[in-house]
């Protein structure tokens, strides 16, 4: 019991400690407002105008704006979660984390929560500005479900990011290319800019391994209850997202332990420049 309380204390403090740089970093370096919010908003806008050029129905503008907001999370997971342990290794922090009597999961969680909070600010900015600029109106009937979908999507997504973090650490410099490799194709298969069901049933099912796929699809259905663009029933999508959340977190935990054992055995993971 005493041990449990001690471990919990360390766990929570570690989460707090590691999320701090993420939160404060945003505040210290204001240039992100321009690069990470304003510019992506412009890119999202480009997709809005493609639909305008094609005379698409108005809800498509809403689809794009929502997709644009969610890109912030995907980019954050790729560039600040997946590649992070690798960066930590290169700067020498990783070994300092590993010699501390704390949970490695807590360190990743701290990173994730900090990143999530920071990214939410960006996502909300894109969503609000996008909605204002293009007169997007949503007709939400079920706020509870919407919130649930959103939270589950983030949990599963950052869980996936944690799995990537261990994998990318193993792959070293190659991880860089992998992150780049994942970026666009996921924009495609997760349906960031168009309803995912247009990819066909099996591709959509396959794409659902990326939590954003069903997250976006469910949110679109909840934001436009009348439109008929959904892939599966919202409840099914929520169930899948819940499943992915648990699965990814458990897997991430396993991967971390495995990665650490491998690191200690091979002795190359605390060595830089690989």
């Amino acid at each position, binding site marked *: 019991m005493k041990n449990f309380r001690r471990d919990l204390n360390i766990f929570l403090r*570690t989460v707090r400690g*590691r999320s701090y740089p993420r939160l404060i970093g945003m505040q210290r370096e204001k240039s992100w407002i321009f690069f990470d919010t304003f510019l992506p908003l412009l890119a999202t806008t480009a997709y809005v105008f493609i639909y305008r050029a094609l005379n698409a129905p108005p809800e498509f503008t809403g689809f794009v704006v929502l997709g644009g907001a969610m890109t912030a999370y995907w980019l954050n997971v790729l560039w600040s979660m997946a590649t992070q342990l690798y960066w930590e290794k290169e700067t020498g922090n990783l070994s300092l984390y590993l010699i501390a009597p704390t949970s490695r999961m807590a360190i990743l969680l701290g990173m994730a929560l900090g990143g999530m909070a920071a990214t939410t600010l960006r996502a909300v900015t894109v969503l609000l500005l996008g909605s204002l600029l293009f007169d997007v109106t949503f007709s939400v009937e079920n706020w509870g479900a919407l919130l649930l979908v959103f939270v589950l999507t983030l949990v599963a997504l950052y869980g996936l990011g944690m799995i990537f973090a261990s994998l990318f650490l193993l792959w070293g410099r190659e991880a860089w290319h992998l992150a780049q490799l994942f970026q666009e194709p996921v924009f495609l298969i997760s349906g960031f800019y168009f309803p995912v069901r247009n990819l066909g049933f099996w591709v959509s099912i396959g794409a659902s391994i990326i939590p954003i796929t069903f997250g976006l699809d469910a949110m679109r259905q909840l934001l436009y209850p009348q439109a008929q663009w959904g892939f599966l029933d919202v409840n099914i999508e929520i169930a899948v997202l819940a499943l992915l959340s648990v699965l990814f977190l458990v897997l991430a935990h396993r991967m971390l332990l495995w990665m650490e054992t491998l690191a200690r055995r091979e002795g190359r993971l605390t060595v830089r420049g690989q």
Partner: protein
Amino acid sequence: MSQRFAIQTEGLGRVYQLKRKRGETAPKTLVALEGVDSEVKQGELFGLLGPNGAGKTTLIKILTTLLLPTSGRALVDGIDIVQDPQEVRRRINMVSGGETCGYGLLTVEENLWMFTQFYGLTDRVARERINEMLEVVGLSDRRKTKSHFLSTGMKQKMNFARGFLNDPQILFLDEPTLGLDVQTSRVLRDFVKRWVRERPGKTLLLTTHYMAEADELCDRVAIIDKGKILACDTPANLKRRLQRASIFKLQTTPLEMSNRFSDLPGVSKFIEHQRNGHTELNFILENENVLVKILDAVQAGGGHLLSLEKREPTLEDVFIDLVGRGFGDEETPLEVEK
């Protein structure tokens, strides 16, 4: 106080698997550590002295749970580093010289605070220890500076401070003064000494390739080369081995056929360096009488004697005596200071 060992190793070894190059079929291995038996007592300041590549860092990585041994066993504070690494981690900390820690965008204070959280320290305790350590390393006036604006030396000092924050039972310092200026090194060394002396039960293992550092600081020193511990004793005892020998340093005009010195009877070890325009010869002799023969040989070789000095034995001489070669020509800032 029980005579429990803070660190204990038995036949500890580590073999690295090297990356296979294209075309090579058999995987290459490198023996970094071999059959290391050592016992460090609680409250001891123990030094590992050896040249670059001797295996010092490898040993520290194993003891700090970053690396698994490929053979043998190690206990830290009585706990097996393979069986229960997490329990080991509660009692230790480590600082590698030449490195920094944390994130450039955080201030010195914030970086250190972040690390205290990984040990579960309350904010009040964390604050106190950070203040204390910043005072020690002389960064108090920089506490609010973002760490990427610190000089390299200051970053190292910040990292040094980090090592003490969790008040570890056993602290590992891997070449802590690497690349630091003389004054800073002095300050850190004094603190290290005080830390072990004034706090009963604290143990410190320090690696270095600076002889004088090991000599000055350590209660006991293990001399390590090519992954093996060659000798382990107090600095005084180690040097006493050479008590009956005579140690001379000669400087001469450039000499060609210096090889012949090792063949002279009575010369136990001999090392030669070419230094800007003259030759430096270091001898360990069985007795002083051999010196005459050496001087003859210098003259016969067409050289002129520039200086002659009889020295007290240093740990370097002990190393030369054990290994038959010196530590190399790099370093040593400490000698400047003397």
